[in-house]
């Protein structure tokens, strides 16, 4: 429609230039004589329109007065003021990649076209928020961030929340915003609140979080649920009520179990990691797996079964499971229970099995000698959603990577969330997390093979805890410091590990596993430079990668070992 209007005005512009057009214009409406005297040709009836558009253009131009136009601008005839202003505005609105912030502020600043009678409209958000919208210092970060938003959002149209979030950053409409979609408004409210929190404006944040919470409660579906988790987390942050959920409990186990049941993410992680381990220890007589987060031990039955049917007979299988200390039980009880269950299974399928449970608060506290690596065994290190926790303490990840290198494993399997929730700026983290968890919640609800209502609710609680940690906690308490595959690649690469390609067999098996969850669903398995990623529609959510010691490290070790 915009284009039609632009064409219309262009035609009109042409009309006003040619003699014929001039006659037409004079016949129907008179040109404004005063402007004509200065050289601009505007029909009198268009005057009000032009004035409004000039006002909008002024707002869009920004403080420095330079419109953010792309370099290949078409220069329109400025004498036809109506058409010229129209075209420039259209261009600026189409050019969202370069000026998302300003679009957003422009949208917020226009009060009148918004539905005035409803309580829930942007006008209700007091101006200080809008003016305090991040300017120069966060400009670049935000732009890059919104660029990512836009590029991924242009494809994903499945989930209401992610499309709502994306519509903020890529609004192609004219600056007049009709906030009809409550989803968009809900996201606006959450972001406004997060921003107020970032600026330290406690009273404003408090008001906004109540507003957001009310909206979330009235909104149904996955959008409402994820929004209410975020609103809750924001409330905790504002009022300083930090949850102390650092220690595990049987409740966490139940939540984890239900998450395992109702979605493919953990299964995908386990299957792909097992595949990498199997390939790496194919010829070994003794396999020793060190699991950095044992939980219920659900990964290991499948590995043991695969080892049992290996041609040539099963190797001896040693498992060292590491877990956190517990609130109620005696520390080692939970781990040894899992160990004995696995031992019974191993006995049934006739695999020689040995289990050891290690309790420690943080992986960085581990002493390699405690692991009791025996000569001649092939060691595999497995870290499923565990490494990111180490980023909370400075120096911890380096320590653990050094421990890993000392053990000299055949393979290190790492599964992590594919998101950057560890940036320095709170608002960026918040926005990333909002987008990430909304995709995750959409996938839980949207999957046709969804488990029972109970399992779904528990899985959502499980994720809700993570959300709370990302948003409300700080310093050492914030353990959910997710980083993207690219970031982990850099980190592990600089620590002396080299990537091992996961291979097409793993890819095929993962695809098959996802096929079991419903063919028409939105889950996608992608291969990314030797690593596998599981995502919902186009958004990758979980990434599996495999690593081993880089050859340089090996020779260094040999040299050190042989030193007198």
């Amino acid at each position, binding site marked *: 429609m915009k284009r039609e209007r632009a064409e219309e005005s262009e035609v009109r512009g042409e009309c006003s230039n040619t003699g014929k057009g001039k006659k037409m214009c004079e016949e129907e409406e008179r040109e404004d004589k005063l402007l004509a005297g200065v050289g601009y040709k505007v029909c009198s009836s268009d005057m009000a329109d032009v004035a409004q558009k000039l006002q909008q253009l002024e707002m869009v131009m920004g403080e420095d007065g330079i419109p953010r136009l792309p370099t290949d601008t078409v220069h329109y005839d400025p004498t036809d003021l109506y058409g010229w202003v129209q075209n420039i505005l259209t261009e600026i609105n189409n050019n969202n990649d370069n000026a998302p912030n300003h679009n957003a502020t422009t949208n917020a600043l226009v009060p009148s076209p918004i539905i005035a009678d409803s309580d829930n409209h942007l006008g209700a958000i007091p101006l200080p928020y809008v003016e305090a919208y991040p300017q120069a210092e966060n400009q670049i970060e935000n732009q890059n961030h919104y660029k990512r938003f836009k590029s991924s959002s242009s494809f994903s149209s499945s989930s209401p929340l992610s499309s709502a979030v994306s519509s903020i950053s890529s609004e192609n409409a004219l600056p007049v915003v009709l906030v009809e979609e409550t989803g968009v408004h809900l996201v606006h409210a959450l972001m406004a609140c997060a921003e107020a929190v970032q600026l330290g404006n406690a009273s404003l944040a408090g008001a906004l979080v109540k507003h957001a919470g009310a909206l979330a409660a009235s909104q149904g579906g996955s959008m409402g649920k994820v929004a209410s988790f975020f609103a809750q987390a924001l409330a905790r942050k504002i009022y300083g009520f930090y949850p102390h959920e650092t220690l595990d409990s049987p409740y966490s186990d139940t939540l984890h179990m239900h998450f395992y049941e109702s979605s493919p993410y953990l299964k995908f992680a386990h299957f792909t990691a097992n595949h990498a381990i199997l390939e790496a220890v194919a010829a070994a007589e003794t396999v020793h797996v060190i699991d950095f987060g044992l939980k219920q031990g659900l990964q290991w039955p499948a590995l043991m079964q695969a080892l049992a049917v290996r041609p040539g007979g099963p190797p001896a299988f040693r498992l060292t499971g590491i877990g956190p200390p517990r609130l109620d039980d005696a520390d080692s009880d939970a781990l040894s229970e899992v160990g004995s269950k*696995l031992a019974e299974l191993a006995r049934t399928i006739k695999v020689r099995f040995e289990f050891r449970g290690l309790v420690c608060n943080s992986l960085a506290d581990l002493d390699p000698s405690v692991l009791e690596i025996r000569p001649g065994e092939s060691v595999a290190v497995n870290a499923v959603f565990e490494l990111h926790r180490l980023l909370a303490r400075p120096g911890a990840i380096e320590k653990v990577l050094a421990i890993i290198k000392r053990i000299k494993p055949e393979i290190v399997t790492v599964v992590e969330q594919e998101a950057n929730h560890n940036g320095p700026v709170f608002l960026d983290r918040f926005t990333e997390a909002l987008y990430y968890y909304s995709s995750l919640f959409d996938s839980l609800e949207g999957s046709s093979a969804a488990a029972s209502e109970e399992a779904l609710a528990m899985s959502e609680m499980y994720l809700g805890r993570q959300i709370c940690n990302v948003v409300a906690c700080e310093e050492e308490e914030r353990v959910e410091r997710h980083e993207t595959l690219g970031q982990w690649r850099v980190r592990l690469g600089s620590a002396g590990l080299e990537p091992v390609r996961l291979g097409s067999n793993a890819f095929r098996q993962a695809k098959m596993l996802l096929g079991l969850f419903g063919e028409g669903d939105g889950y996608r398995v992608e291969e990314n430079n030797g690593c596998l990623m599981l995502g919902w529609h186009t958004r990758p959510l979980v990434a599996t990668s495999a690593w081993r010691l880089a050859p340089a490290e090996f020779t260094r070790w040999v040299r050190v070992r042989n030193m007198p």
Partner: protein
Amino acid sequence: MWHEQRGEEEKRRGRFFINDNVDILREILKRLDGPSLGVAACVCRLWCSLTRSDDSLWEHLCFRHVSSPPPASVRAVVVALGGYKRLYMVCVRPVLSRLGHSERVRKRVWTRHEVQLSLSLFCIDSYERLASGRLAGADASASSLMFLCNTVNV
């Protein structure tokens, strides 16, 4: 009179009754597909006991369409984990029906990946049964293979 004639003819020929020849019956049952085997179990007591007790029937069913026969060690593992009948009911049938279109299920050739996947899922199921069996009065309905039991809009 016609009946008498017929009876005499049959006596002369020697009457063949399938239930007297259990080994032939077994061979025939081995070649049936899943639903037919289920139907066969309802025919009479002999057939029912055969299909229930003889796990090798189900073994043939599970791996009939595999392009290359599975290694010998698989049998020991499957038997230990609960048997081929359970493997078929819990894993193979849902996997086949979801990964292949239902009309082509019978003719579909399995790859070893599908075999591996089914075995892995079967093992996880056995592990969970073990785990829940040990805790007296635990909620036995929690199972990570529930997603296979639920109907899916394929």
